[in-house]
């Protein structure tokens, strides 16, 4: 299997940054997340920034185009699944390695008929 150079660079960057993830023992969604956004015509990397105000998750998603405000966010702590809506994007993922600073969210995204898998790692 051959990986595109840009994809490898993005993965390397994400892995490198993940090594230096700052500690975050509060709300698991809080922080900056970088990773892969497969199947996106504008690029296969994504940036998410999420915060927690005590009642809701806020922030932005940038799938290589522009910052899209998160307008809807639901975290289900029973299985640590998360649903986000940002612009026309619908994102469904699940936390992995919850206990680590460089935890990740893995799932799928959809925008109209387009869509794909994604994985972001907390920085």
């Amino acid at each position: 299997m051959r990986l595109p150079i840009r994809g490898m660079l993005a993965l390397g960057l994400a892995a490198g940054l993940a090594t230096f993830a700052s500690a975050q023992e509060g709300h698991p969604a809080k922080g900056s997340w970088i990773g892969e956004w497969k199947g996106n015509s504008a690029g296969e990397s994504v940036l998410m920034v999420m915060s927690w105000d005590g009642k809701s998750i806020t922030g932005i998603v940038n799938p290589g185009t522009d910052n899209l405000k998160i307008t809807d966010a639901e975290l289900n702590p029973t299985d640590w699944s998360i649903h986000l809506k940002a612009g026309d994007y619908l994102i469904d993922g699940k936390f992995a390695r919850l206990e680590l600073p460089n935890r990740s969210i893995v799932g799928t995204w959809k925008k109209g008929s387009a869509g794909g898998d994604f994985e972001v790692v907390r920085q």
Partner: protein
Amino acid sequence: MKIAGCFSSSRLALGIGALLFGISAAQAHHPIQAKFDPAKKQTLTGIVTEVDWRNPHAHVFMNVTNGSTTLNWAVELESPVILKNSGWSGTTLQPGDTIQVSGITARDGSRQIWGENVVSSANNRQVYNVTNAAPTHPLAPRPTPRWPDGHVALGTTTGGTDGFWAFPSAKVLQEDGANLKFDSDAKLLNINDANKVAPMQPWALALYKHRQERNLQDDPMYLNCKPPGGPRQYQSDLGLQLLEDRENGRIFVLMGSGNRNYRIIYLDGRTTTGLVSGDDDNPLYYGRALGRWEGDTLVVTTSGFNEDFWFSNGGLPHTDLLTMEERFTRPDADTLQYKVTINDPGAYTKPWSASWTMQWVGGEDLPPYFCQSNRQ
């Protein structure tokens, strides 16, 4: 293979293994149950080969022979600070001594045992049993020390005897009245009681249970030597010292745990804004603490915490929205009453309180204790 005609490959391997084993064991700082399984009890008899007397845990290495096989085991013990309180010293055991160790073995199957009891086989004398007993209280309470102006002293007064506060009556943060049962590592005896510990939001409760179910092995205070911020600093075995700098209107809280770091409580009437010029938005492990006296009670309000640490021994979550109100009272010379009200709308559904006492350890300075990071 023989090396220099002296060591067989198996002996060399045993030696290197023991060395590496010793290094990894010596670096480990952790809740006991994160590394050792209470269900795996074992008793070993062997000959002491080495005593490693250092923080955060002392180790005794011993050769255990079973038939024709001899294997080196690491016996992990409490910190030298606590061992000394139990009458143990670095020379209590010597290489060559035959001992019997009872304890619990490592979860990962390695040859490590947490020593709960050590008996000398030569005379059947128990040489080790951690008690870490608090100092005996006098029959009649001694009066609360006061400064010349009559104000209560929370620490040592000028010319007074050194001392510090330790032996908290509770080592687990839980809401007053909950009265739940925990083990010595702050692990719930019944995980189904998790929702009764404090009024947690659903995500906080799920995260707390996750930490508990992983035997608290992710505790950043042990893994990364993060400071015991928040109320956790008052639930440490290693105590703390309250030094009152009355002239400058501040109280230093010196930690016996962590890396001897400290917290400052300001009583000079300042506001939290501008405490540290230019970094008001920089959250801290100990937050920014402002104190005032209400009669003989010191009331401290602290906010500005970061989220890089666990603020309780059992892994209760907090967020940077946390504000903490603490009330310190010294009803007699040997007792410090501590009450904390947690107001963290980021993690809890309502403010809640917890309280406990600490005991005065007079005539001594804080014991030296330094953390060693597990992630090196």
